[in-house]
């Protein structure tokens, strides 16, 4: 328990350092642009591929589970749309990003720690926590909502392709379904969750990397911990946010 509280305290002290005034905003701006490309743009591919197939599978599974003629066919499109918006685009995509982005952040910062690059920054008088973590945090907070939108669009497109090409429903039925009883707030709900999850992924992974002690083995362990802890926290906050935002 004491260990947990100590870690909890260190996490918040790190955040305090991260959010202190930047030494030179122009340098931070350049770093943020670099991170936008590295953590954001480079994640578009994996998010698009997984969303496409997830949308396709959701459509096919919904179709095979609603074969009863009592259910209208357009419900398949509606099921695909709501699954993508409410859960997949934010939560499942966040879990995927925790694996890709989280491990990358923890190993990058962890390697900098064990090779004394962070010490070199500190010796120069640079606030290393802020310099290394803040641009990553800003980049993910700004870009992950775009990834969510991409996941929704590509996922629904995947559902349409799978549904129409497999013949489980017509294109008209699917398009009617994705327009049926659309609630715009679901998009807002999804984007709010995404922002929270982006913060969790970046801060938890950075924390794990920043306090690594030892060598390459410990960097690997920190990377694994970053993914596991981020994923657990994402699932926990998914429940909390859903209750707060949809009840």
């Amino acid at each position, binding site marked *: 328990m004491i260990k947990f509280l100590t870690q909890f305290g260190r996490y918040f002290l790190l955040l305090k350092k991260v959010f202190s005034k930047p*030494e030179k905003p122009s340098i931070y701006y350049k770093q943020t642009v670099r991170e936008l490309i590295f953590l954001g743009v480079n994640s578009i591919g994996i998010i698009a591929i997984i969303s496409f197939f997830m949308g396709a599978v959701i459509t096919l599974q919904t179709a095979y589970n609603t074969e009863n003629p009592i259910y209208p066919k357009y419900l398949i499109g509606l099921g695909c749309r709501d699954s993508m918006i409410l859960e997949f685009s934010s939560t499942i995509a966040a879990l995927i990003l925790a694996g890709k982005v989280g491990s990358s952040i923890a190993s990058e910062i962890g*390697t900098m720690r064990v*090779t*004394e*690059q962070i010490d070199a920054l*500190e*010796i*120069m*008088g640079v*606030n290393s926590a802020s310099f290394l973590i803040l641009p990553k945090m800003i980049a993910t907070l700004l870009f992950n909502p775009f990834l969510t939108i991409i996941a929704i669009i590509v996922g629904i497109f995947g559902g349409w392709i799978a549904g129409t090409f497999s013949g489980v429903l017509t294109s008209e039925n699917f398009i009617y379904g994705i327009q049926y009883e659309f609630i715009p707030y679901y998009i807002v709900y999804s984007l709010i969750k995404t922002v929270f999850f982006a913060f969790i992924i970046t801060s938890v992974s950075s924390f794990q990397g920043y306090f690594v002690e030892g060598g390459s083995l410990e960097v690997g362990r920190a990377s694994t911990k970053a993914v596991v802890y981020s994923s657990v926290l994402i699932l926990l906050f998914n429940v909390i946010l859903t209750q707060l935002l949809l009840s």
Partner: protein
Amino acid sequence: MIKVVNLCKSFNGKTVLDNISVTFEPGKTNLIIGRSGSGKTVLLKSIVGLHEIDSGEVWYENTLFNKLDFAGKKKIRSEMGMLFQGSALFDSLTVEQNVRFPLDMFTDNSSEEKIERVNFCLNRVDIKNSNNLFPSELSGGMKKRVAIARAISLNPKYLFCDEPNSGLDPITAILIDALIKELTVEYSMTTIVNTHDMNSVMEIGEKIVFISEGVKCWEGNKNDILNSDCNTLNDFVFANSLAKKLRATK
């Protein structure tokens, strides 16, 4: 001048440095020597503030460094340069960007002025035509030179070197030692070098502090070290067979 007074440091209840007091003189290469694990690196990192000390004082001229807040330390740190054991160059930056980094962070010079300064520093450490190489493309000796260039880019008043010639061949090690000594004189810096290399001690040791198991055992210069009464120091100095033969001859 850097002055350390009764410095103590422990990790998880284990004492690593016990009541160390020493003064490092300006314009000289001050050496901290001792066996591996004796506490040299911890002492150096405590002096620069990378380790919080348990008790004692670290003075930079008339400023009590270890009691300063981040902003206060930052001011003193702008006058520090440090060469780390593994060079600690930023992997994602080229040689030029590494040396330019402190200039970008702490000066408002124009881009041309920064590039001029970078080239001056790289020339000073004898690195040529390597501005666009990444650290992974450099040899161990070149990495150390680039790290020295980065350390001197802001004209520091204090230079700290942690095992500057570890992992280098004897000739490159001598060149790095000579470079550190030249720069110390050229910029009138207070230089502190951690080493266990006796060649370095005899080449550049103007003031030498010997540490064993976290305790300061001896202090002197390279002329005194061969005639010391300290048995622990003699065991260290005359550890290899060549040194033993030299001692027997004397």
